[in-house]
């Protein structure tokens, strides 16, 4: 079928253990370029661990990751960032003492080339770079509709806005793959709608590939192209939203054991 195009990211046989506890057991799935891929599952299923494996925070005991045709068994978080991974966290991980603008520009830190000395005297490359990167950062700020808050210190902003700033910081890096860990947790319906709009806009406009963990099923079913379902560290389903929705094992994992009369 469409498997003629090799997937952008492939995970093969990933196993991750903490002591004797298996967080992930032999999980394989792939992510096509430009798609929105969701990972769902009940609490403790290993969804966040999966994201942490993908961008190098955890190193799996078994399995390999193939990104863009290159095979790696372990990759540091910084290598992941340089390769084009960006992410947001379940509990907001912003730089609380910095302004919105500083957070977003910090998201672009890998684009800065000036030496320490040039930065110290604010001369030449350092000065030019600062203005050029600022311009790029402003594009993201405009895209995320954060103009009013750009000079505000993050810790003074409400929760929903902080979530948005975190997405802005991730987008500022112009990532190839964006990992979103519950981007809509704790939001009201309106905020969720806005967040969906930002995520989909980024996917459609810039072609960003998105891997997303989310608990709100209606959101997941609406915006994702394909869904992986995890339960107790095992993969129990993988496929398009409608297939996943009708899958018996998924229903069992979410609703408990059901006796079907058949």
């Amino acid at each position, binding site marked *: 079928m469409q498997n003629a195009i090799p997937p952008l990211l492939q995970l093969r046989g990933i196993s991750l253990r903490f002591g004797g506890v298996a967080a992930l057991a032999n999980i394989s799935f792939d992510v096509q370029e430009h798609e929105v891929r969701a990972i769902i599952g009940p609490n403790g299923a290993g969804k966040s661990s999966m994201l942490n494996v993908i961008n190098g925070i955890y190193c799996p005991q078994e399995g390999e990751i193939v990104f863009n045709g290159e095979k790696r068994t372990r990759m540091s978080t910084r290598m992941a960032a340089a390769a084009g991974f960006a992410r947001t*966290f379940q509990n907001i991980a912003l730089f609380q*003492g910095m302004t919105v603008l500083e957070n977003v520009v910090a998201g672009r830190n890998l684009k800065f080339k000036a030496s320490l000395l040039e*930065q110290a005297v*604010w001369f030449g490359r350092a000065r030019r770079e600062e*203005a050029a990167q600022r311009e790029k950062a402003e594009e993201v700020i405009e895209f995320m509709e954060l103009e009013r808050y750009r000079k505000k210190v993050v810790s003074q902003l409400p929760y929903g806005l902080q979530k948005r700033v975190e997405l802005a910081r991730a987008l500022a*890096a112009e990532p190839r793959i964006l990992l979103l860990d519950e981007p809509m947790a704790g939001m009201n319906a309106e905020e969720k709608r806005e967040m969906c709009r930002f995520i989909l806009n980024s996917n459609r406009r810039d072609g960003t590939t998105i891997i997303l963990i989310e608990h709100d099923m209606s959101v997941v079913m609406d915006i994702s192209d394909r869904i992986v379902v995890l339960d107790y560290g095992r993969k129990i389903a993988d496929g398009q939203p409608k297939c996943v929705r009708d899958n018996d094992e998924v229903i069992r994992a979410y609703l408990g054991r059901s006796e079907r009369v058949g």
Partner: protein
Amino acid sequence: MFYRLSGQFRTSYYEDNRLIGEKLERTVFIATMLVASIAIPLVASPYLLSAVLIPFLIFSLAALGLNILTGFAGQVSFGSAAFMAIGAFASFNLLLRVPAIPSLLAFLLGGMCASAIGVLFGLPSLRIRGFYLAASTLATQFFIVWCLSKVGWFTNYAASGVITVQHVAPLGFALDNHVSKYLFVLVVVTTLTVVASNLMRSNIGRSWMSIRDMDVAAEVIGINPLYAKLTAFAVSAFYCGIAGALYSYAYVSTVEPDGFSLDLSFKILFMIIIGGLGSILGSFIGAAFIVLLPIWLNVFFSAMEHFSGLKAPSGITSNVELIIFGGIIIVFLVVEPHGLARLWQRAKEKLQIWPLSH
């Protein structure tokens, strides 16, 4: 009323990135610099220069150094006096042993020695943080002072361990009278303050602050914690080293290891806590506070003695000073961890909209 931001438009990112963005603040800064560099040397008494302004500027520099490490990069340190000692002793030995070395170069190299040792003693910060890191910098402090007093070569085998410094004239300021001492210190401190402000509005400053605020997230966006932490140690120790050289050559005119004890480290730490962690202005406010407090207390006590006719027991002022310091530190940590600089920031925000309240 006249403190208004309206009508000031910034039409390019270069303009928005300026060191001092607001018109009024720029004017105030230029006026302060004019007064400090022209009026003060003309009218100030030798006492004001040597006992107030020179130590204020030198301590401001040391506090700025510690603030870069602790306030901006979030690495707690009790070793600032040790780095001052390295700066002072390295400059002393360079001037003593390298013939015809320009004194400004000796000071710079002294700062760089402190910087190199700062990186070395900063290595533990890659594995430990917070309280434990603080304990390791405490070890740095004791080890360096011990080393400087036990190894005779550093003090040039002086019998008492106290050495009078050489007469030098960096940049043409002969450091043998108060006015030129003051002017030289002013030039150095101003330059390094501008440099620090530049670093804070650049990528490296943001890297430091992101490591301070959330190190996992910093790594995920591609910041190298090794580079960020070690540069913070290097730059901070450089500032402290230069402050140490100035302390010896432009303030006390001697070098002795015991002058750079843990007490001094704590004094500098108090400055940034009171002045404001993570604020350049705060370093200066804190230094001013700690330099001026004993002087005010002395004046206050002698006035009290004069009016009451009673004689305060000797040494009571220094003890009261300690009690007041302790009290103020506790108050600041509880009420305003961001120090006097934050109070000033708030006052500024209020003034800009005065007489309205929102």
